[in-house]
């Protein structure tokens, strides 16, 4: 294999390991500050985006329905705590399984829809779930679920005084989701998934059962999104249909990934690292100015990035690296590295 390619992968891996090693130090430095909150959200959004990345980025199936899976996970954990007075863990597990089942049931018929029709179908599903949860008594209807006071600790995934517990949990979630995707990237499933995106018929001529691959990717993506939802509700202490089962929530999954760079390992993290601080700090600084300023900037940023660099931040980084590489190659008098 090309030695340069290896170097790039190694650098990335080193960076991630470095981040992971530094991470436990953070609570010691930043204890209860706003900064900690932003970090937790970055890790959560990165995990959400990476979950979406499995089917949306690597798989090439643009789903706007992930809010449904996120919501199922959130309600799973929420119901366990609020309605049944248990620890959220079994609820989260049930949420993950339910989300996977719902994902497969929905996608199986929807995968035969092409392009825009598929995207619109996923919108429709979010809206339907939203309305159903609004009137469903068992899950709390429009009022949603409000958390009572429970014992602190990992068993209940609840901490009141310090955010450190949440930080470590978010970190674990992040490592888990990214680890799974990294693993799949190098194994057969990852290759088959990308092949289906690159050319479904061609992939099938090489023995790839594209339907099975897409459904499996969807199920995994949904389960991980649900897990993120479960963490969210534990951190947020309440959930209602408008909060989780909404188009806006679905778009978060899509936007963070696309802005970071879909179909890449680092994309979701880069996207979250840019968008979350933007969202939180503009809201903190300018939230009082009649609202929406952060979203105006956010919207503008999306337009600019999508138009200028569809490969997202990863693409921008790659372009810069190529330009630097070309400069050094020119200095060495070597061959050109091809057009940007």
């Amino acid at each position, binding site marked *: 294999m090309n030695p340069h390619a290896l170097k790039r992968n190694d650098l990335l891996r080193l960076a991630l390991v470095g981040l992971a090693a530094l991470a436990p130090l953070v609570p010691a430095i930043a204890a209860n500050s706003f900064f900690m909150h932003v970090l937790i959200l970055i890790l959560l959004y990165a995990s959400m985006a990476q979950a979406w990345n499995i089917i949306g980025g690597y798989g090439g199936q643009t789903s706007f329905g992930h809010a449904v899976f996120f919501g199922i996970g959130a309600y799973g954990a929420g119901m366990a705590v609020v309605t049944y007075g248990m620890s959220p863990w079994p609820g989260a597990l049930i949420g993950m399984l339910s989300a996977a089942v719902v994902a497969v049931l929905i996608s199986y018929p929807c995968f035969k829809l092409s392009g825009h029709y598929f995207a619109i179908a996923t919108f429709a599903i979010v809206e339907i779930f939203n309305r159903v949860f609004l009137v469903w008594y068992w899950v709390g209807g429009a009022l949603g679920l409000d958390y009572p006071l429970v014992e602190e600790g990992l068993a209940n995934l609840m901490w009141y005084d310090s955010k450190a517990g949440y930080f470590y949990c978010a970190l674990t979630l992040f490592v888990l989701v990214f680890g799974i995707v990294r693993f799949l990237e190098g194994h057969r499933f990852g290759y088959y998934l*990308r*092949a289906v995106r690159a*050319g479904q*018929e061609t*992939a099938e*001529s*090489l023995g790839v*059962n594209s339907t099975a691959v897409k459904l499996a990717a969807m199920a995994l993506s949904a389960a991980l999104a649900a897990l993120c939802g479960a963490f969210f509700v534990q951190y947020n202490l309440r959930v209602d249909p408008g909060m989780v089962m909404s188009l806006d929530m679905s778009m978060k999954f899509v936007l963070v990934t696309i802005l970071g760079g879909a179909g890449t390992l680092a994309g979701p993290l880069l996207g979250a690292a840019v968008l979350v601080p933007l969202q939180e700090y503009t809201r903190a600084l300018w939230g009082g100015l009649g609202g929406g300023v952060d979203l105006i900037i956010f919207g503008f940023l999306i337009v600019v990035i999508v138009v200028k660099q569809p490969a997202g931040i990863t693409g921008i980084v790659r372009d810069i690296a190529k330009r630097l590489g070309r400069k050094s190659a020119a200095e060495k008098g070597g061959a050109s590295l091809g057009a940007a």
Partner: protein
Amino acid sequence: MALLEVRDVTKKFGELVACDRVSFTVEAGAIVGLIGPNGAGKTTLFNCVSGLFPASSGRIFFDGSEITGLPSYRIARMGAVRTFQVVRPLKDMTVYDNVMVGAFMHGAGGTQARETAGLCIEMCGLAAFADRPAGDLPIGVKKRLELARALATKPRLLMLDEVMAGLTSTEVKTALELIRTIRKSGVTLLIVEHIMEAIMPIADRVVVLDGGVKLAEGPPGEIIHDERVITAYLGEKFSRRMQARKEGGTDG
């Protein structure tokens, strides 16, 4: 028992009959050529056999089991793999990754697949391009990729659809050598070809299609003298001229 048996396969597109009750067999270890003028139905036949679309009627058997109507991925997994006439590289992926997709058919573990992929890349002379995105390559390299990828699946029957088209004569010679090597490794080959100099030297048997119908079948040496074949390829007038010249005493 033949490795591949095509029995009375017909394919209609609406009213257009692309293949009309075509039957032939391919013995294990053989190289069979499928030739005929443009529009004869060769690629359509390939598509039916490989499962890209189902035949309108007729049956197809691979290694004794019926594969009629099976989806293409099942047929590929059974060992009958095809390449495409208009090459289909998986564009966003590198050459290496393309071949890996093929290699994973029999090597679910990464290491075995990597070995197979490496071998196939070497064999088809693609080592220099391994890390390039498959969409950016010259056509000759894309064709070699198509072949390497199919080889990586360790097929028992390899179906090549006009793999020589667009190659220079040097490249054709290299390709022929490669095909002979592939046959030696035990792979059976069914080759659709247009270029006579390419297929006649290596084929054990040749099946001739014209207008969806099988015209003739036999060893290359016989086929080139078959009148119906000459007429199909070169037209009636030429064929009659050739006949007249032959009867006139001198060879054509």
